């Protein structure tokens, strides 16, 4: 069969996530890619195609930065493509890798995500001012935090959710991150710490937010035939899904991410998942803000609309709960080098399913995991389902 080839992840690599790293973006991409190859027991010459995921050029400060990063990603003399769906990029990039292999066109694909946000100075936040419509939105001074705050407020309003419940996500993820050697912000904090932290754009406070970071991550994808040769322990990409909603974010009700649900349904259908809460053992939804984890759990159909805060309060999403969510520490704990952070989630599910997550390992021998990222103007969902 040419089409519908089964695709496995056989290696993953990652750098430290930090506010500032000395390495150039190319060097970060190299470190992650090299580690992924070593973990897969493969060499660069075994790689037939390369996919890059990296978010706005306005962070790294290089136009066409996919081209700039190519050699660091191992693309020398190779077919190479960059995909870009805003914050959704990190989980989307392995989906692009999936079709490189699933199509039968290539047996192997190296998937690399990189972000060097610290190049934008004095603050990467500035790069986000140009994500808005230049005629209708930029003139009123829109910035990134505002749009999250507007969404968070709408979500709280619709389901009557308290900030105390949302803050639990930040507490959980930062604590999980203490066990993660790459994490930027692992910490033991309390709900009160979150509620007493500085107001940025109410209802968003300082500790509701993940930091900006530098970092890179990579995975090696191979066809079933190659997987058999290189590992006894492949992790299969069994479902892929992605969806974008309308540009007109002020015309949509932000309380619920339809686009995540559509992306999840696409991926679940392919993976044959009918009852997500029962069939999924571990989840890494995108958590650049604490409420986003809850929002995305609902969009991923892991619970009913408005129910995620309750599950969090009851400890269901703790590492030893019934449905561990963000055992990695998430973006809130590990840092948020955008595309690399999304791919970090895929790496985490890979390690969890292989039983290699060390202190972060969730109990119960997990077999099926899901990772998801969000992006654009409250608009993009990318979802991957992995199975052992």
């Amino acid at each position: 069969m040419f089409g519908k080839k089964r695709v496995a992840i056989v290696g993953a690599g990652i750098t430290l996530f930090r506010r500032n790293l000395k390495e150039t973006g190319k060097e970060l991409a190299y470190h992650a890619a090299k580690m992924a190859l070593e973990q897969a027991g493969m060499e660069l010459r075994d790689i037939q195609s390369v996919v890059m995921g990296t978010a706005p050029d306005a962070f790294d400060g290089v136009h066409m930065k996919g081209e700039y990063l190519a050699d660091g990603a191992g693309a020398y003399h190779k077919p190479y493509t960059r995909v870009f769906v805003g914050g959704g990029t990190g989980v989307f990039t392995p989906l692009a890798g999936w079709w490189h292999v699933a199509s039968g066109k290539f047996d192997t694909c190296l998937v690399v995500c990189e972000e060097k946000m610290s190049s934008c100075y004095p603050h990467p936040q500035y790069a986000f001012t140009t994500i808005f419509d230049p005629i209708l939105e930029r003139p009123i001074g829109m910035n990134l935090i505002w749009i999250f705050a507007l969404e968070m407020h709408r979500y709280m309003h619709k389901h009557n959710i308290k900030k105390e419940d949302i803050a639990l996500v930040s507490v959980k993820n930062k604590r999980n991150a203490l066990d993660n050697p790459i994490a930027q912000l692992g910490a033991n904090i309390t709900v009160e710490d979150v509620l007493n932290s500085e107001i940025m754009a109410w209802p968003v406070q300082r500790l509701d937010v993940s930091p900006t970071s530098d970092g890179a991550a990579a995975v090696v994808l191979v066809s079933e035939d190659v997987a058999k040769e290189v590992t006894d322990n492949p992790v299969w990409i069994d479902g892929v899904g992605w969806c974008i909603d309308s540009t007109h974010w002020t015309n949509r009700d932000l309380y619920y991410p339809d686009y995540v649900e559509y992306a999840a349904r696409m991926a679940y259908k392919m993976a044959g998942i009918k009852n997500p809460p029962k069939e999924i053992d571990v989840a890494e939804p995108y958590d650049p803000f604490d409420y986003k984890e809850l929002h995305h759990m609902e969009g991923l159909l892991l619970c009913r609309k408005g129910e995620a805060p309750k599950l969090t309060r009851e400890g269901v999403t703790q590492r030893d709960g019934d449905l561990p969510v963000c055992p990695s520490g998430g973006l809130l704990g590990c840092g948020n080098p955008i595309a690399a952070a999304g791919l970090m989630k895929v790496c985490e599910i890979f390690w969890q399913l292989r039983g290699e997550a060390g202190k972060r390992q969730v109990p119960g021998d997990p077999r099926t995991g899901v990772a998801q990222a969000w992006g654009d103007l409250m608009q993009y969902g990318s979802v991957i389902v992995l199975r052992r």
Partner: protein
Amino acid sequence: MSLEKITNPLNARHWLGHMEADYRYTLGVAGERFLKEIKENARIMGAKCPKCGVIFVPPRLYCEKCFAKLEEWVDVGKRGEVYTYTVATIDVDGKKLDKPQIYALIKFEGVHGGLIHRIGETDKVYIGMKVEAVFKPPSERKASINDIAYFKPIEH
């Protein structure tokens, strides 16, 4: 296709804006060492691939061909040869330059790669022309590729 079009050109609005910000690029692990050598010692270094055997200029952390980490650094000298060149007569805004600017790719003996830079102290340039780096005075060097002011022809 839309049902309505703009038929009065005065009604076609446009909106001015920009995407400008300040950037601060770390030179990176290899770049910092390379440019420090130029700044402090007026030395041009290359990095040798332990697997492929080639010496890269500019030096880098890794071999782009085989992904080996490059740890052996060598001085490639400050003399090279013009591999190719051009004479630019306009600047980035399209304005005519007061004096045409010669650019060249300068290759060093036994080295893979080279440096793209300006050629100075001459109006003549040809492929194969021997040139030498002219460094700015130490006090003006900032660990930048511009610490080399330009390359000049070597007299035979």
